[in-house]
Each structure stands twice: as C-alpha cells, then as structure tokens.
C-alpha cells in the first residue's frame, strides 16, 4: 500500500455519503457502497491547541474507503481509495490507494 496525502474534492449525498470525487483533474464516481470509519489522531503531538468547544475533528478524522471509476469511462477498472475528511477544516485528502491499482496509476502517470 502506498501512503499519499493529496487534496481531493468530494461530492456527497444528502446523507453525507461520497458520490463522486475529483482528483488530478479527473472526475470519478463511486461505484459501490463505501465503508467509513473514524481514525484516531495523536492530537497532543500534532495540534497546537485543544481548547474546549473546538468541536469534532480533534481526536479523530473520518475516513472513507471508496471504490470509484472514471465518470467518463463506465467500463474502466475500479479503484479502491481511502479518503479522509477533516471535520474541522472540511477538507478532503486522499490518504491511501490500494495495491491492486497502484501499479496502473504509476504506469499511467
């Protein structure tokens, strides 16, 4: 597995579930029901402040594992990506691309 942190733009359903994302100038659609979890952060080492009332996103961040394919190529192969959602800033980052497709990515890059 490779570890990336690249910024991505994510479009979500009204329930907050990712439906499509833009990455490297391409648009992908989510092709299967995604899985999500919340991953802990070592906030006491990573953060400058931990003030009361700061809200969500200090102790953990939301991670979605999505299977996507290119929006314009319905028969393109599925990619499995982990994208994280930082609740405090609202930003999304791509944090992981799973092995099976990394090869392809490298080749196409």
């Amino acid at each position: 597995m490779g570890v990336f942190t690249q910024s991505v733009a994510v479009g979500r359903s009204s329930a907050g579930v990712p439906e499509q994302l833009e990455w490297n100038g391409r648009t992908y659609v989510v092709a299967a029901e995604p899985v999500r979890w919340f991953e802990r952060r070592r906030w006491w080492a990573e953060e400058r402040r931990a003030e009361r009332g700061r809200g969500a996103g200090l102790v953990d961040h939301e991670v979605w594992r999505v299977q996507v394919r290119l929006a314009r190529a319905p028969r393109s192969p599925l990619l499995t990506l982990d994208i994280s959602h930082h609740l405090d800033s609202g930003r999304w980052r791509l944090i992981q691309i799973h092995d099976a497709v990394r090869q392809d990515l490298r080749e196409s890059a």
Partner: protein
Amino acid sequence: MGAGAGFTHLHVASAFGAHYGVSWPEELAQAAAADGADALACTDRDGLYGMAKHVQACLNAGLAPVVGVDLAVAWDGVGPDGQVAVPVTGHAPQHPAGRVVVLARGGCDGAGYRALCRLISDAHAHTTGGSAGGSPYVRVAELAAHASGEDPAEPLLYVLVGPGSEVGQAMAARRYTQGRTLLRRWKAVLPAGSLRVEVVSHLSPPGQRLSTAHAVRMLRASRDTRVPAVLTNAVRYAAPDGAATADVLDAARTLSSLEALDDLQPNGQGWLKPGAAMEQIAREIGRDSGEGADAVQELLQQTAELTDLCRMDPGPDLGWMRPVVPEASVIGISGAPERELRNRSLAGARARYPHLVSGGRFAATHEGRELEQRMEHELGIIERLGFASYFLTVAEVVRMIEGMGVRVSARGSGASSLVNHVLRISNVDPLEHELIFERFLSQDRSTLPDIDVDVESARRHEVYRAMFERFGAERTTLMSMQNGYRVRGAVRDAGLALGMESDQVDGIAKQMWRFSASSFREAMDRMPELRGFADRVESGRRQGQQQLDLLVDLTERLDRLPRHISMHPCGVILGDATLLDRTPVQPSGIGLPMSQFDKHDMDPMGMLKLDVLGVRMQSTIAYTLQEIERTTGETVDLEQVPLDDPATYEMIRTTHTLGCFQIESPGQRELIGKMAPVEFNDLIIDISLFRPGPMQSDMVRPFLEQRHGWGMTRYPHPDLAPVLAETHGVTVFHEQVLRMFDVMTGCGLARADEFRRQIGGPGEQGVEAFFRREALARGYSLEVIDEVWGTLHAFGSFGFCKAHGAAFAVPTYYSAWLKTHHPEAFLAGIFEHDPGMYPRRLMVAEARRMGIPVLPVDVNVSTDRFRLEWVPSHPELPDGGQGRWGVRMAFTSMSGLSGTEIKRLMAGQPYTSLADVRDRARPTRRNLERLAQLGALDCLLPPGGASRTDLVHHLELQHAGTGSSAPLGHHPDGRRRRAGSRQVDGQLSFALPDTETAALTPMFPSPSRDQQVRTELDLTAMDTSAHLMESHRAYLDALGVTAAEDLLSLRSQSRVLVAGVRVATQTPPMRSGKRVVFISVDDGTGCIDASFFTEAQHQTGEMLFSARLMLIEGTTRRTGPKAISLQAIRAWDLHRPETLPNPDYLDSTREQWRAWLRRDRQAAAARRAGQPWDAPGALPDVPHHSTGGWPVKVGAAVGVPPENPDATGGQRHSSPPPRRADQHRPVPVPHPETWELLPAPER
C-alpha cells in the same frame, strides 16, 4: 415504539463517574431531549454517583430516567458448566470477566432499584476504601442472585454484556467459539430474560475494537445463543468535543501520559449521537452482517423494549422526594411522635426556664405567656409538617453525644428554635437574642431543616461509631462528597497527560491562586503572578512548541470535573431499616460505610442527614480544661463563666487574638481593632459582620462610624428603627432582612424567609415586584422603597443569620477567656489540636511573644501530647529566678516518628544513657539521629563534655553503612557494643553518667542558632528555639527593616520595609470587583498585615503567592486605636538573593516613593470626588477570581454608586439613591471566604 419515538441511550457515563465520564447530567439530558428522545439512562462506573442529578435532569427535560451501573464482574464461584459452585473468599477476583452494564427494572415499586443498590454495595464490599483498597467488582453469582425477582418471568435487573465484557473481548480477538461459550454460560447463570447482548460500534477502523465488524460479531453471537441484542453507543460525552477531555481523564486515571497510554479509546465517537446517527449505525451493522432491514429493525425494537422495562417512576421506584426518618421505636417512643415531642419540650422548658414553668403550666406573667406562645407556634408548624420524629431523632443524637462526655453544641439556624433549645440541641436562648423560628423552619418549606451539631474533632469518629451502634448499621451511613478539579490539581493532571516534568508543572501550579480552571487563559492575561508563565507560553509558541498552550487548554477542560468521592466532613445519614435499599454504600477512609450520594442528593432521595461536624476548637477547649485540671486541680466549668468578664474583652481589644475561635484572621483582628468589643452581643455582631454580604454591601464602615458616634444613626424609615436599632441602622442579620420584609409588606415572617432565599436567584425579580407593589400600597415613598430594596438585594442571600453568629460567639468567648486567664494551658491546647487557620509555628511565635516558655522535645520528658510543665527557671523568662508554666513539645511534633515508637519511648522513660534509649525504646536509627539533632538527647550528654553536634556525628558514624531503618535494639551490632560497654563498666550504677556519651571526644561546638532553627523546621515544621527570621537579621538590620511590634508607634503614611514568614494569604471579594491580596507575615514580634492593590500586585509579580519569606515595602495605614496595617508597594522573595534590594534602598529610592505617594493621594482624591482615576501609564486592573463567571460578579453597592461604573457594568439599579458622595477605596478589611473562617474540619 421503535425508531419513531427516538432512540434511547442505555449506556451513558456522566461526569460523576470520576475520571471516566465527561459531561454533566444536565448536558446529557438536554442533548437527548433536543434530539426527541423520551428516556435516557445514566450508568456511571462502579456506582450511582450521578444518578440523583440524572433523575433531576431528566425530570427537568421531560425524559423518563433509566438508572444503572457499569460494573466489573468475575466468574469466581461459578463452574465452567454455569453451575454456581461454593462461594469463594478473598478480595481480588480470580477469574475476571470484564465489565457489564446493569440496568434496574422500573415500574415495580422500587424492587429493581433496591436490587441495584444492594448489588453495588456488594461490589464495594470487595474493597476496603481508599485508593489502595482494591477496585469494586461483583461475582456473576451475586449478580444472578440480585437479578432474580419473586416472579421468575420478571427479573429485577437486566445485564448488558457488551464490548467491554470478556465476551466482547473474545469477539474482538475473533475467538468466536470462546465468546459464544461464555455467552451461553451467562445465559445459564442469570435468571431467564435478564440477559442482553450490547452491540456498540464507534466506527473505529476495521479490525479494531468497537469497529462495525466487532459489533457485527456481537450481533451474530446474540443470534447464535438466542439472547436479545440492544444497541448502545457506550457514551462518555455529550458531544464530539468531549473526546479530548476523555483522553485526558484516561491518562489521569491511569497516571500515565497520553503518549504512553496503550488503552486509549480507539477514536472520539463515544458521544451521545442523535437517533438518526444511531439508526445509521444500526443499518451499517445490519448491512455488514448481511442480515438486512429486519435485523436492523429488530435491534432497535429490542432496545426500545428494554427501555420500556427500565423506565423509572421516580416516586414509587426511587423514593424521590419522600423523606424517611428512623422508626419511632428506634428513638425509644411508643406513642405518637407529636405527643412525645410535646411532652419532652414541656419537660425541657421546665429545666431551661424554671422560673417560667412549673408543673405542666407556664407562669401567668408576660414572659411565661410569650414562652408558651412561641412553643405552641413552633410545635404547630413541626406537627403540620410531620417532622416531630426528626426533632426527636436529633435530640436523641445530642443526648447520646453528651452521654459520651463529648463537648457538643448546635450551630447554624437551628439555634433559632425554642424547641431545639429546650430539647438541649442548642444552647442559645432564641428569645433572649430575638431569633426567628421561620429562618429555620416554616410551613412554606417542605424539606427537612438542617440541624448542625459541632463536636470535638478528635472524638468525631468515636461519635460516628456510636451513632452506627445506637441506630443500627442498617439505618446509618456516612454521606459522601464529590471532589472536583480545582485549578492546581487540573494543571498537574493536564501536565501529566502531556508528559511534562512534574517539577515544571509544580512550579506553575504554585503560582496559581484560586481562579476557576476554566478561565486559565483569561487569568494569564490579567493576573500579574502569571505574567512570567504567559511570557513562556508566548516564547514557546514562537519557537513552535505547543506544549504550554495545550497545558492551558487541557487545564480548562478539566475544570470542576469530579475526581473522586470521599467521606463528607460532617454528614451522617439516618434512615429506617430500608436505608440500604435506597442508597448504595462503599467503605470510607475510616472503614465505616458511606453513601454514594452527596449533600445535593439528600432532599431528592428523601434522606435525612445530620451534620455532626468535628471542630478542632472544641477539642482544644476540652484539652485546655483537662490540662488546667491536671496541673492545678481546678475544674473550670465554662458554662458558669460570666459572659461579661472585662479582662477578656480587654485582651480581645488588644487584637492579640491569635488562636481564638473566629477572631484570629488578619481581617478579623483589624475589624476588632476598629470595633473594640465590650460585650457579648458585640461578638455576635462582629462575627456576623465579617461575611461577604455585609462586606460587599459596604455595611462595615457605616456601622463602625455610627457605633463610635462619628456618624448619625439613620433609618430608611422610622418604622424600621426597632428592627435596625441594635446595629445602629445597618443591616447585619438575616433576621433583620426578614423583619424588614414583614414590616414593609406585611407578608409574614415565613414568606419573608422564602423571599430572602430567592434573592440572588432566578426568582428575584418576582420578589422585587412584590416588594415594591406592597410597600407602595402601604404608603412608603419611592425613595424609601428604593433604598430598602437596595439593601435587601445586596444583602439577601449572602448575610448571616444571627442565630449562627450567636452560636459561634460562645466558643469565641470561651477561647478568648481561656487565652486571657489560662494562657499556657490554652496554648498547649492549640498546639495539641491545631485548630486555626495558621501554621503551628506562628502559635509558637505567639507563645514566645507572650513569654511562655516553649520547651523542646526531650526524650525523658516529652510525651505524645503537648503538656504543661513547670519551669523553675528558663533563659527566656524575664525573671529567671521565678518559675512559671511552659509547654513541652510532644514527640508527635517530630515527623517520621511512628505511633509505636512514641509508645515505646514513653514506656521506657526515664533513660539514663544512649544505650538505654536504644535498648528499651528501640527507635529506628534515623529517628534516633533525628532525636539527637533536635536536642531530645541533650539530657544524656555529660555536662561540659561532648556537644550535641558530637553526638549526632557519633550516631551517624555508628549507623553509616548499615543503612537500615530496623529498630536498633534488634541489631546484633548494637547489642554487642552495648554489652561491651556494660562489661567494662559493669559496676556502674544507675545514677552515674552515660559512659557512651562520656567517652565521646568533644570536637565540635554546639549547633548555631540558625542551624538549630533549620533542623527544627525540617523535623517539626516549627522554629522552637528562635524565630526563623533571625537568620536574616544582619541583612534586614542593614536595610532598616521595621519590626511588627514597632509599627504601632509609627504615624500613618510612614514608609517602611518589613520582613517575615508568610502565615496567611487571602483574596476576599471586594466591592470594587478588583482583586486585593492580603498577605500576613510574622517576624517574631507579631503579625504584619499587608494589602496589595493592583499596582503592588504588578510590582511583585510571580512571587505573590509562592514566596515564603518576604520582604515588603509599604506605607503604614492606621486603621484604629490598636490597629495598623500596611499598604504594600512591592515585595521580594528573601530566598532569591539576586533580586533583593541593596542596603541603601530606603535612602536611594526616596524620590520614587514620594512620587508613588503623590499618585496614590491623587487617586484617592479622585475617588472621593467620584471621578474615575486614570493615571497615565496605569497598570491594568486585576479582577477578583469570583467562583462564578468572568468578568467578576459584584454585589450591588448599597446607597453608594459603584466605585467604578465600568468595572461593575450591568448594575440592576440605574439610579441608586444619591445618599453619600464620599467615595472610598475598597473596604480595607479583608474577610476570608466563609469556608476559610469556619473551623477546619478534621483532616
């Protein structure tokens, strides 16, 4: 039911589950109600600590309360087949089974709740109290027994086996078979229908515990074993923001840093999620389990069904608001309690008022009728409220305590009651002092009144044990109290969590002074003593270090969160035989059981609490009387001592009142100096004046002016003259507030007291409207109404009831009388029981000031007590030829000496030689050295021979290398050496000198006085042979420092330097809302009280609260004929020589001081003229650390516009009556926060 009605959280920890839950019950209930839930559970760890608050919060929010507990369980005593085997013994569980949630069945007239209470008490029966007493757990067999109801189909308890249980742990580790086997075992042991599988997903990463996969496995196990499953979120905080606080609490609980903590919550999802989010989680679990919508629906349905089984009906289930008192038979009565109370009251009245009551009748005089009417009035109210047996119970307790020969007296508003007086509960005559019964009890109050009883602190536990015995252990338990984080503890635990060095954190903690932890960051900006810390935070930030910033944030997060419960200093709960069905109990620090409920829970839970407070002054008085009798044979009966002894009042007026009850604090000494009391009623007024209410509403100065005839006594209206005459027109007592209400509105005293209670609370506006309307209707002018309301508003809830003042004034007078007439015995009592606010070493200085010899520890004379000893002649005696009584330091004053060693030392007295001490007293080597260092072995040294230093060296040499602290007599070397010397000098007789010490070669001189003082401070925390400041004498003399005793001869506004040991620091609330720091130092000739205003606080900076030995520059301010205090300009820490001024300081800085004085006078003049004073370059104000919000709340000034309109902001009265224009600085009389003044409860 089901999803439509909202989701009910059944596993929720509140903040009262110490070091685990984060959110307060109100926050949780409000969040649940806002989400549309109709019920909410509270399941604190190990107890019902937050239950009563939870029930109240649920009732307020319109929710049905569910109550339960999160408990550790163990399989001990259950065989692998699920059969209950022989009960096992021993404390620690052999086969732990993790933690489960237990919920009580509701709607069954308390059967479920009773089972829950008993279960929790059983869990704590495996512990012995205190931090080292083990942790509570319950055996599965015990759990099963408590869960079984009479009807097999209806268990009393429901057990939720979830992710924290052994089953859940097995499932997390994918040991499916083991998990299912354990679950079947649970099912076999518990009563049918009582088991549930708790399914939780915190959406943690796949593979970790509390992931959805973990939840799925639990759900499947429930299927396989046919145990219904319920969904919870194992909640620890109301909102996601609490997750970081939970992390810090986990670190604090395990005494670990966050970095080293291996058991952190997997993420921050343990919050009270809305129903929609919980349903979403249910769907994800359903999807991943591959079971679809029906399974999801079933999970939610079963959760709702369990909720319905557990809804509590507060009245019938919990006894909510239903007072229970001991059965009549227990207090020894057979008939109706009302008749019994009447009979006993009449009998008591005969004893108290023999001239007014004879036979069964009251005298036909005016006094007799008055007495009868008052008695009828009180008995009528007591009967209507049904409290007769309560009064009989308290009377029984007091009778029991008196029977034990323990000093006892009622305190507080209980002294307002004639019935209490005739039942001997209170010693104050309410008629004589015009005390109002309604202040204590009235028809309009439905809760049990508090009757507080003071007993000797040293015998408090004895009294408690006697109460347990008298009323039975099933009816008696101690009350507990919640100890919450204050700022110093919070910063220490926050530092620990961040992995900071403890020295660094300690240094920060020492500089902090009483602001609320939640306002740390604001305090950093405004408090001069934190300036250095604020600078370090800032510079760290610039260097990219965030640790101190985080420290501030985490400290604020911990603010007020409960840390642990402990035995309340005085509350004892008395109930009937069902008490232990209504409260869980756990062992307290002294072994007696204590309830998990605190004082706030008493009324709602229908519990009768008696305050039996250990008061050290009562022990001091008892000991003093004992020493007088032992040394002189004279028996002093204080009850017979007249309350008008002139010598006593003369002593009080000198303000040398250190050691006297209630009047020894710096502020009180200043007030006494100004007030110059001459009679007992003055003491009552003095004690009552010295409270936040009178202070904040500017009552003290007008009172003093009018008392001394400098100001005209003036009443807002002639109708109020009878009410206010005794205090010269100034409102001092609650009783006066009540009468003012009554006079101006005709509301009656009972309602008046209800009104008084509402002042300062949400109901105040209604009270004000009523007061204005009724007073207007009775023809009072608007000016009068404004003025009187202003007084009522300011005084209202703060003041002091005269009954309390009267009850306090008695021990105050007794202690002053004893100090006047038996000073040596009194000081021995003070040393023995250490009753006051000051360190004991100040009392040693006081003894020195009074010329009373303080004799050092002596191995041949000292005992386990501070005893009077006749001193034939002593270097400290002014007339060495004449003997006098002195006080011998007790062995107990030396730290490190154990109780057993002291017993042996006493048993072996007298000793003739060092060997003799070793042989018979057998102290540890270290303690023998300590005794030698203190001079306790000087009596064994040959005259003219070796010195104390030689002896210490000798012992250290002997002990070097052995390093053990075993008792000396057991050491073979010791025996041989002793045997050897005995052999050589076998024929020496008893009277001859110690051969071992005689053999020492004198080499070293005796220790210098400074060395001696240092040793004494190290070993006894008292400087017995000379004052601590003596070692700085040379420098202080060079500087030209003034001694305390010489201050009084100086003119006001003289510039001085003083130096001394800090003995007290106080920051009383001030009318201006600014903080003024009062620091008292003792320099051996007396106490100096210095006030630090804003500028001086800035000048002094970081050492304001941390320095022990201080040098202070200030200006004298004469405050009364016998009183002078210091307005500080700046101060230094004598332990930081590099910061100290040069010896020519006073001369070289004269000009600066003149400038300071000019500024100060200008500012004072501006204040007098009512103008705001803004000196160029003025330093920012330091606000007072109110316990409430920020900025500080300030009581309204009465009849005087606020000193600084900006500082007090939202005043309620935009147009205060322009009565006086003489503005003045804040009342320079400090008064400690009330709790500091109250006698220190037993430690």
